[in-house]
Structure formats: C-alpha cells, structure tokens
C-alpha cells in the first residue's frame, strides 16, 4: 500500500539486473500501487533490456486497527491464498517492508522452505517511519526473517539482531 510501495521501489532503485524477474505482490484493495510499480518498471526498462516483472494481488490480511481475533482469521485466509502463489513463483529472495500483505507471503515462503520445496532468503526492511517502535509486521518477522533491516539507531539498540545501514530510502 501507498507509502510502503514508494519505499520499496526506492529500495529497488539501485539493484542490479541480476535481481530478475521481479514478482510484485500487493493487496487486492490497493489501487495506487499497480500504477507506481508499472511506472518504475517502465523507467527501468529504458536502461535495462529484458526487464521482467509480474504483478499479483492477494486478499488484504488486515485493515488498520482491525481487532486481533478477526485479524487472525483474515491473515489465515491470506496465507491460504498466498501459499499456492508462492509455490508457483518459488522465489530465491523475498523482500518486504511492512504492509500486512507481507506476513502471509513470508509465512508461505517459510513453509516452502520447511517442506524442502524451495528455500528463500527473507529480507525485511522496516519503514523509515519507524524510529522507536516496530510495526506489527516487523515484530512478527523479526523472528522469522533472515535479515531484518532498520533505519534508525534506536531500533538497532532495541533489536540487536537487526541490521542498521542508516537511511536507505
């Protein structure tokens, strides 16, 4: 969604063409992200020939401030949906930055790894908006990601297993 998409596209801006094909997954309720992604990829195609990407939508796991119990149900539903998608894509690398959408996808990728089907590297970058506290996605994925990147020193102190590279968006 919105700010997350802008941030993640900035993260991608300096990646080499080895990071291809790129599979974007976002919430079905998200109207603006598709346009931003297409615009980014179009610009990229001007520099790199043979630029490949796909777009997929999954049900939104959780609305802002949705209650705990109903969040568990909607997240489970999103996992059921993202599991076959992740299986189809079999990513080598999962990069995410915090929208609720990333939790079911990461869980699916973890399951695929546990089942011996495909082991992906999971990299989580917490939003630049998070200076002192982690988002809910961050709190969950801090334990399940391979690399957890924060953008402010206070978070590095609170979460010692995280990686601090300074501001990267």
């Amino acid at each position, binding site marked *: 969604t919105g*700010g997350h998409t802008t941030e993640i596209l900035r*993260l991608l801006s300096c990646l080499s063409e080895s990071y291809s094909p790129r599979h974007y997954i976002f919430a079905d309720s998200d109207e603006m992200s598709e346009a931003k992604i297409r615009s980014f990829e179009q610009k990229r195609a001007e520099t790199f020939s043979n630029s490949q990407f796909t777009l997929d939508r999954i049900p939104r796991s959780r609305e802002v401030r949705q209650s705990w119990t109903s969040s568990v149900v909607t997240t489970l539903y999103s996992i059921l949906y993202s599991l076959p998608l992740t299986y189809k894509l079999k990513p080598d690398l999962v990069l995410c930055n915090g929208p609720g959408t990333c939790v079911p996808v990461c869980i699916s990728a973890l399951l695929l790894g546990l089942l011996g089907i495909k082991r992906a590297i999971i990299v989580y970058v917490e939003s*630049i908006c998070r*200076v002192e*506290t982690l988002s809910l996605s961050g709190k969950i994925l801090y334990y399940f990601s391979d690399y957890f*990147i924060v953008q402010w020193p206070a978070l590095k102190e609170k979460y010692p297993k995280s990686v601090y590279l300074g501001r990267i*968006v």
Partner: protein
Amino acid sequence: FRFKESLAEDLRRADLVISHAGAGSCLETLEKGKPLVVVINEKLMNNHQLELAKQLHRDGHVLYCNCSTLVETLQSMDLSTLKPFPPGQPEKFALFLDKVVGFQ
C-alpha cells in the same frame, strides 16, 4: 485538491510548507529542500506517525507545533535554524543485498 495525483509541482513552487505529520508528506517536502512546519493533531493520529516527525524535529529538519500554537509558531519562526535533509542511500542497501545473496 485532496486527491491530486502529485503535489510535486505545488512543492516546487512553495517557499514554506505546513503539513500534517504523515511520513510521505514530510519526506517528500524535505527532499525538495523546502522548509517545513509540521502540525500535530494528537487526537487524530496513530502514535507511531509522531515518531518520525519528532525525530525530524530533534535532528533540526522541521519545525513542529500543534493546531493551537500554529499561528504563534509562524509568527516567531526562524527558518534559518533548519538543517538540510540529506537523501537516503539505497545504494547501501544494494551493496548489502548483493553480499547476502552472493552477487559480488
């Protein structure tokens, strides 16, 4: 105006921006090098949205007030005290990721 696709043009022409504490608004403004006064409405906002505004204020990049102190802030502000906001460095992320996945 609420749903304008991009404020880039308006930002470019502005001498001063007065904004809510949304991260996107703050960062977009600071990146264009415009002085920014952030107005906080604690009643409306998620606490976490304040984190970034507070940090930007601590680092001297923005001025900061609430609705009731806005006029006073505008009257007494000294914009020369604001420090420029350096851009983020996604190239550092790219370097890190290359090492992690083994492209070097």
